[in-house]
């Protein structure tokens, strides 16, 4: 792997940057792999990276229907935080944040993790209690999160309107270590790291079926580029998980919904942090390029169309204009949609399945990006050891049968 650094950049500039090598290969699929990962999004690539790096399993293929990082990884609003309520969730997302903090160095790829803070606004008494419950639980779990008064919110994020509005702001919960990262760089950095350790990333390779042997265990995957034998299969297919798992005869507690996001035209720095308001349904941050990156909740109906309705956008932007009325004259540059797979308790599933050799990492809903390194890390462990890491042990499929839900949505009514 060619090293990336300022010095290297300078050195190769003298040669007109002609000597840079591909960041990953474009290999033909081999006949057999120890592990096949379905889906080359951030989670799938991170899984392959950690399989190789931490478990020494390098005979791995990551299969991607389109181009790597082209699904939700490349479509999300890049928010990173870990101030989740329940112990199980806090441990999982905090594991990810700790990895985020060293990820650029680990990958030798600047993923631009920017801990500029994530501020979640409270507009009513219910929000206040809920956020304070989070703040206290987070502190005891070793996760930073603090309560700010409305004036402190304004001081932390001066563009915010806190009072002359329909639902005045009563305060907010701030995770200072939360922030954003550059979504494409995450996919590319993990791809480059995995590839350099021998992982084959095979793009334009659609999985059409999962072959199982007489005992029911997985044998391999049928793909648009032929059959590929695999001892283990890890499904990391986000919105398409139900479709892939159906190939192994499994029904999932998942529904796939469109999730839209949008950006404004770029402007000079005008918004210093990430602000989320669940009560009026919107969140906003400013990218390094200057665009206001804005999102809200999902559309109302299940869909794989990767687009949503205009009325969702109008409600998102009326909320943004209420929070930051001086942005009313900014202009929307791009609006797009992804497909998010949602579980009944809004928490992910990172688990073994009833099919031997088949593992699944799904159900991240609207919040998967922030977990990317942590999720890949524990999913790799689960695949390598055929048993979950203690962090993902609660995130089973069986919890729905037994009722041990991890219901962040019910408990907090906070978007991820």
């Amino acid at each position, binding site marked *: 792997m060619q090293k*990336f*650094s*300022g010095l290297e*950049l300078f050195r190769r500039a003298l*040669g*007109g940057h002609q000597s840079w090598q591909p960041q990953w290969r474009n290999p033909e699929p081999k006949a057999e792999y120890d592990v096949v990962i379905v889906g080359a999004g951030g989670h799938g690539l991170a899984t392959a990276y950690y399989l190789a790096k931490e478990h020494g399993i390098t005979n791995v293929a990551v299969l991607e229907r389109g*181009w790597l990082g082209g699904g939700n990884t490349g479509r999300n609003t890049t928010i990173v935080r870990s101030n989740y309520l329940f*112990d199980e969730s*806090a441990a999982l997302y905090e594991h990810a944040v700790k990895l985020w*903090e060293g990820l650029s*160095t680990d990958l*030798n790829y*600047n993923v631009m993790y*920017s*801990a*500029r803070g994530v501020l979640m606004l409270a507009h009513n008494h219910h929000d206040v209690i*809920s956020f304070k*419950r989070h703040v206290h*639980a987070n502190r*005891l*779990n*070793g996760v930073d999160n603090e309560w700010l008064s409305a004036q402190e919110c304004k001081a932390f994020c001066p563009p915010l*309107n806190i009072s*002359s*509005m329909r*639902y*005045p702001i009563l305060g907010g919960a701030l995770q200072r270590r939360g922030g954003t990262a550059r979504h494409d760089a995450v996919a*590319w*950095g993990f791809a480059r790291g995995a590839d350099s350790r021998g992982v084959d990333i095979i793009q334009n390779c659609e999985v059409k079926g999962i072959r199982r042997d007489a005992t029911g265990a997985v044998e391999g995957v049928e793909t648009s580029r032929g059959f590929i034998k695999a001892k283990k299969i890890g499904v990391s297919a986000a919105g398409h998980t139900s479709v892939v798992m159906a190939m192994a005869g499994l029904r999932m507690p998942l529904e796939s919904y469109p999730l839209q996001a949008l950006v*404004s*035209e*770029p*402007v*000079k*720095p005008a918004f210093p942090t990430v602000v989320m308001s669940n009560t009026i349904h919107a969140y906003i941050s400013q990218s*390094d*390029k*200057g665009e206001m990156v804005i999102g809200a909740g999902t559309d109302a109906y299940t869909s794989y*169309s990767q*687009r949503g309705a205009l009325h969702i956008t*109008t409600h*998102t*932007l*009326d909320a943004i*204009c*209420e929070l930051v*009325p*001086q*942005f*009313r004259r900014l*202009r*929307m*540059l791009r*609006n*797009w949609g992804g497909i998010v797979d949602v579980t009944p308790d809004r928490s992910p599933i990172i688990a073994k399945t009833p099919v031997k050799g088949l593992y699944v990492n799904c159900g991240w809903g609207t919040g998967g990006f922030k977990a990317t390194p942590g999720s890949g890390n524990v999913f790799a462990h689960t695949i390598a050891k055929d048993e979950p890491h203690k962090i993902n042990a609660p995130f089973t499929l069986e919890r729905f049968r*037994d*009722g*041990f839900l991890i219901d962040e949505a*019910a*408990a907090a009514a906070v978007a991820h």
Partner: protein
Amino acid sequence: MSGSFRTPVGGRIDRLNPVSFSFDGHFYRGFKGDTLASALLANGVHLIGRSFKYHRPRGVISAGSDEPNALVDVSRGGGRTTPNLRATQVELYEGLAAESQNRWPSLSFDAGAMNDLAAPFLPAGFYYKTFMWPAGAWKRFYEPKIRAMAGLGRAPVEADPDRYTQHYAHSDVLVVGSGPAGLAAALAAAASGAKVILVDEQAELGGSLLAETEATIEGKPAKDWLADTVAALAARDNVTLMTRTTAFGYFPHNMIALAERVTEHLPNPAATLPRERLWQVRAKEVVLATGALERPLVFPDNDRPGVMLADAGRTYLNRYGVQPGRRAVVFTACDAGYRAALDLAAGGVTIAAIADLRAAPKGELPARALAAGIDVRPGTAVVGTKGRLRVSAAELAKLRGEAAHGLGPVERIACDVVLMSGGFTPSVHLFSQSRGKLAYDPALQCYVPGASVERERSTGACRGIYGLTAVLEDGYAKGEAAAHAAGGGPVPARELTAEATDTGTDGFIGATPHPRNPAFAKAFVDWQNDVTSKDIKLATREGFRSIEHVKRYTTTGMATDQGKTSNMNALGIVSEALKTPVPQIGLTTFRPPFTPTTFGIFAGAARGDLFDPVRTTPIHGWAAERGAAFEDVAMWKRAHYFPKGGEDMHAAVARECRAVRTNVGIFDASTLGKIEIVGPDAAEFMNRIYTNAWSKLEPGRLRYGVMLREDGFVTDDGVIGRMAPDRFHVTTTTGGAPRVLAMMEDYLQTEWPDLKVWLTSTTEQWAVIAVQGPKAREVLAPLVEGIDISKEAMPHMSVREGRICGAPTRLFRVSFTGELGFEVNVPAEYGRAVWEQIYAEGERHGICPYGTETMHVLRAEKGYIIVGQETDGTATPDDVGLGWAVGKAKKDFVGKRSLARAAMSAPDRKQLVGVLTTDPNVVLEEGAQIVADPEAPVPVPMLGHVTSSYHSAVLGRSIALAVVKGGRARIGSKLVVPMPDRAIEIEITDPIFYDPKGERLDA
């Protein structure tokens, strides 16, 4: 130089209406009908902006919404500041004040231009490869620097005072684009009698015809035909013509979103007018006549001010009467360059040379150029330009065969403008947004619409049809077909023949050959994002093979023009670099909006009190007049407390609580949800929906009901009255009312359609006045008629109908305070009058109005839960002490089966308990966690949390409710609430703090 580039005659500007304006503080003059760009060019101003990354000087490239370069900030003062407007679209008005962006200290001397010198170290994606050391420096140091350099204009800092509106419209045929194809389509559709909407983003209808000086249509000069056609369309009742209106989004099921700029072109807009309006048009049929965009050519230093698209140059001359320069070099790969050269020559511009990439241009226009004595050079490329803030010369070299560097010697030709044309790219943005599949046309070297998915037709240049007659005929045919499909009447045949010189379909995509070192030459593909052909080649070298990857890595096509001028050239360069045909590289997705669209129109009127309905009760005005503080509960405003004489909330609530416990209080409970459940199967329905049993409840009696979701968790509760054997009066929580009714309807309609029972929301039918306290009966007795409210006749948990203060009432004897209490339901319009009469009567008894805070304290003293506060969607009835309300004998009810799952009876479930701090003066924070050992290492095991916490005036100490793991078994034990600064000792208690036997209720 003021005005010196304006032609003496010609163009569509209104020369009788001069307009003065300013740019960067300098004052200039233009005419009504000018754009800012045309007026600046008329004044000889070409330097209009600085580029994003290298801060290179930039001028105007285009004459329309595809402009990547000339972005300005236009201010009308205060919050009326708009960044990033295209000078090519800003209409001139008297007093317009524009400023350039992304430069310091000035446009002509910009310190950021040092970046241009550092450009070798800033290739595509350089930021992914560096700024990683030392750890944490990205956030602290590098990122702030990068962010400050990025961005274009400045966001406004004051709230926008302008108004925006929204409008839903329907049409039989919506035609997008009013060039010849769109006009012809509109003519045909209009003739059918169908309801037609024709929209165009420009200030005038006409599209390419606005710059047409030579062609004739139906025997008339194009200009006259245009005027006649517009007049004919405008005269029809079934046609709506919309200018300054951009069709920016194509949404499912033929919904097209339009952004209409209503006042932006006016010097002094009336306050009654909205600035912009969002139209959501549902069209039975859509005709897309969105035209084609001229492609630039990618050659070194093609970004100097003065380098512009050939047809844009022609537009400035023909439409605006502006010479783009005195002496032009034309670089072309198609006949459009010749057309521009001929028009400009006729307009007094010297054409120094035409460099044509084609070895042997044929056709009428090249022949006419030769005949006009223009220096035409076939097989020649422009390989560079000179000049600092404006192009001063072009460098030409002859192409020799196919070899990449087979170029002849470089010749420098002085000029002040370079016109370029690489041919035309059909504008398929809206078609692609409609999810229609694009097909690559190798002859045209572009993507054209394939099969439609929506009820849509593309016509004219946007589907690769060129030649005026062909375009008009296609437009008319598509308009007719659309009208027919939409149910319109017959359309008369019409021969729309035109006389015009065909510019053919030649063109070029990719980067043109040049002799410079390709590793260092800057040939721009995406002007605004400063992406050069070498950046794109670097991306392919680094393994980015999909066009989406190339786009994201280099940022080409991601600027505010969304790649209108750059996408096809980028594809051409990738195609060459990977030796792969264009169609195999893929195409980036066209995403809405077509051009950037103001946030304000999406928000519309939704701001402040119109952001969401402000729901108020019939008694709200009374509370407001008495200075009540309000809180938001869902969309409702509820009186929170009634401060008197400078009291804070604590003092007011203590006083209100004492009043209720000692005398009587009055409380507005109107926001409670109410549902009337009526029908012979009403009781059976109640049995299935609620956990309790309802069959044996006598009419005239009340019962507390608990409702679960099917997953077994508490979702709502309320007091329910049986008004008659077949009629229940259900109450729900304030926030839960819509959810509960929706859930009931779901079960009733889809699971139990056989039940003869119907549900009606009566939340707003009734104003609800709670009268609570030992003297409640004394207050009400003189006001009530037809009801015996004595203790014996009307026990706790009963309901009677009669009158109060003359109004019909459903009188509930019920208490959420633990005191003797009534809830007076009266029709809403009488709510305030009845409230006032009760209050007047109560004054003799010391009646005190109280708000939601006091209500919370009083119920907490009694250990009554609030769903949503003690419960959080993960609580079973038993968890919150409501196990008694679950009908064990019932075979089934919603949620029952889920209660049988293992997790629902786990020993460590959190249970509702009371909490008393050892120090009675400490009021715990709601949401605080409860632990056994605050000194335990992180993560500290948590046992539960405080759900409600107050100072209780009547008990003279703090109280709290909490949910704690195995809580009921811990009653009497000590635990700790750890706070950041201290650990608070608590004791777990029974949740009922006051009158545990409930004797006061039965008073």
